[in-house]
């Protein structure tokens, strides 16, 4: 082991032995701050979930409405082109004749 390696080990050993006083309980102010932030976050999350369920319901309702509309207008959409449309288109085609 090199000298500097040995020195580093001695430094680590001494640093590890340094006394460290840990307070057993958090200060009242810290406790209050943590609980307040937790409460706010929980409320925000709850609000988000409420909105999320609303969005989900709105999406389902919109989809259902689209289905109903499709069902109602299905016969109209599948109907053959009426002759009157052909008649209206005729003069337009005629103007391009040489």
């Amino acid at each position, binding site marked *: 082991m090199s000298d500097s390696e040995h020195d580093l080990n001695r430094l680590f050993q001494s640093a590890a032995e340094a006394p460290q006083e840990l307070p057993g309980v958090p200060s009242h102010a810290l406790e209050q701050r*943590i609980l307040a932030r937790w409460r706010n976050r929980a409320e925000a999350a709850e609000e988000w979930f409420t909105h999320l369920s609303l969005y989900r319901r709105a999406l389902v309702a919109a989809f259902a409405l689209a289905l109903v509309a499709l069902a109602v207008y299905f016969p109209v959409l599948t109907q053959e082109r009426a002759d009157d449309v052909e008649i209206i288109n005729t003069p337009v085609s005629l103007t391009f004749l040489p």
Partner: protein
Amino acid sequence: MNVLVREASLPDEVLNVPDCVARVRRGDEDAARSLLTHLFPLVLSVVRGHRPRRMCEEDLTQTIFVKVFTKLNQYSGAVPLEHWVSRIAVNTCLNALQAEKIRPELRWADLTEQEEHVIQTLDTTAGELEPGQSLAARDLTDKLLDCLKPNDRLLVNLLHIEGHSVEEVKQITGWNISMIKVRAFRARNRMRKHMETLMKETTT
């Protein structure tokens, strides 16, 4: 169970942890207060060991506890709560270290009188440092650690100051063993070079 958890957490008979966790999940503030008191020594010891120099200890502790409480729904119970919390605490400290971009170069003029004395003792003697020098040794180690990258700093701290085994470090960080060993080796080399530079400055 790792050393950190063994030393810093209160005995389980003081608090029924699973019951308390369930109550906190339901939003019970009294239970949250009890859990906070139970976990406080553990979180504080992680914060003291790994926080960036410029960051307030209380702010970091607060961030960790808010994370713990808000993510408590994700705790599966597969590992002891203390392990889960210590991992959150270590990761939060690591993020804070990574956010602190500046890694100062350490010069002789930056050392206090006691730290200078530690360097001189290391340079001139071969035995152990005196017990009275341990606080200065700790401060000097912190200053040397500040010169390292956040991940390296975390590793050296866990392995050499807090005395965790490689396996325990793997549990705390989630990194693989070979990566831990390689990183730790390189980090030690970097620290050694910084220390050698300081020792050269002593002699000049």
